[in-house]
């Protein structure tokens, strides 16, 4: 199981996560920040649990590339 978290309020809209993991991230045309697709929001943290382990590599790349370090990816 992969757990991805995005601390969205701190996003500066650089677009890197979308470039590296387009299946999980999109840029919002409303406020210019990244959207973690299908995630659930709680106090500014957007989280999703996914069973597909194939997404690990791309999401880890997105997490590493994020300039504000607001994407966390955990494998359980």
């Amino acid at each position: 199981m992969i757990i991805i978290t995005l601390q969205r309020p701190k996003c500066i809209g650089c677009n890197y996560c979308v470039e590296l993991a387009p299946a999980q991230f999109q840029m919002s045309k409303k406020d210019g920040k990244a959207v973690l697709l299908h995630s659930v929001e709680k106090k500014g943290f957007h989280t999703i649990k996914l069973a597909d382990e194939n997404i690990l590599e791309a999401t880890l790349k997105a997490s590493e590339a994020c300039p504000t370090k607001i994407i966390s990816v955990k494998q359980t």
Partner: protein
Amino acid sequence: MTKDGKIELMAPAGNFESLQAALDNGCDSVYFGVEQLNMRARASINFEMNDLPEISRRCKEKGVRTYLTLNTIIYDHDLTIIKTLLQKAKEADITAVIAMDQAVIMVARSLGIEVHISTQINITNIETAKFYAMFADTIVLSRELSLRQVKKIYEQIVKDQIKGPSGNLIEIEIFGHGALCMAVSGKCYMSLHAFNSSANRGACKQNCRKPYKVIDQETGFEMEIDNEYIMSPQDLCTIDFLDKIKDAGVKVLKLEGRGRAPEYVAKVVKCYREAIDSLEDGTYSKEKVNDWMNELEKVYNRGFWSGYYLGQKLGAWSDGPGSQATQKKVYIAKGMHFYPKAMIGEFKMEAYDLKVGDTILITGPTTGAQELIVEEMFVNDQKGEKAQKGDLITIKFPFRIRPSDKLYKIVENS
């Protein structure tokens, strides 16, 4: 330019503490970022959209102009938030927007918002100034111009009567004090290259401020460089040649430092306020400049140089990784209560100690940054000379204290 023809003093505001410090110390205008699309995009030194009316209210009370910085590079996914932000700025009656991207300039003009051209556009000649005068009333010139070049542009503006949308001659703004970087007008790739963290999206990691060695890859020979900080210029300071700046036709002097602490904003605004006023009343002197320099050295600085204004060929590089400030603040107590009739403030000591005679700094979102010397205090309801962690202290203040305030002790930097 202010209504009475003085150089306009523009202060940075990264939060309400700094905004209040700027207002209390006599700025003519403030610039600030809201949300992510400005050159200090990190959330901790930015306002939120809902803060715009309060910023506007506080500034209007003092007749201070308000400038929203919206000066990063812009992607397609930013276009809606730009429109929303500018619409909110218009509703809050913000004076102008500082823009770099043509999309921002277009939206602002379509809403009838005054536009100032950011230094990121790198205006270095009169023809470019003429071009942007179609959209903007103030242009921030490139940081790399000499005052001789600035003056030539100014003289041509007057000669050719180059006017902005307001119908007035366009005004020249320059950077007056604070950090400079090695990149031309801030257009740097270094942070993006090393950390994916783009300076041009307001996320500079400042890796130029570190020491580097230059190594010949073929031979492994390390170049000997007197100063290791070869990419980190000293901070700009112009207080000692403000007369030349005025003579060059500069109308707006911008202080850098949206990421700096409120006491930094307070100190720098106060010094430049006094300097600009003394230029006008004919009391600008070497002695005064020395006093201001001593004051400016107390807060964050990497050592000072005059930038490129006086025509130096090479930059002056800093000789350390961080600040060379002669003073620093140490957090010691939090605000508890204020007794308005007696003007007594109560604080809870949370660290270190405090003695009568110490200089203290109080900061808070409404209080700003206020400095004073402790002449008398009560410790746990008894008159005392010294307080320690855990004590409740009360001090008489010439201003109001709030529970959101923090109390620091100012100490000399060893």
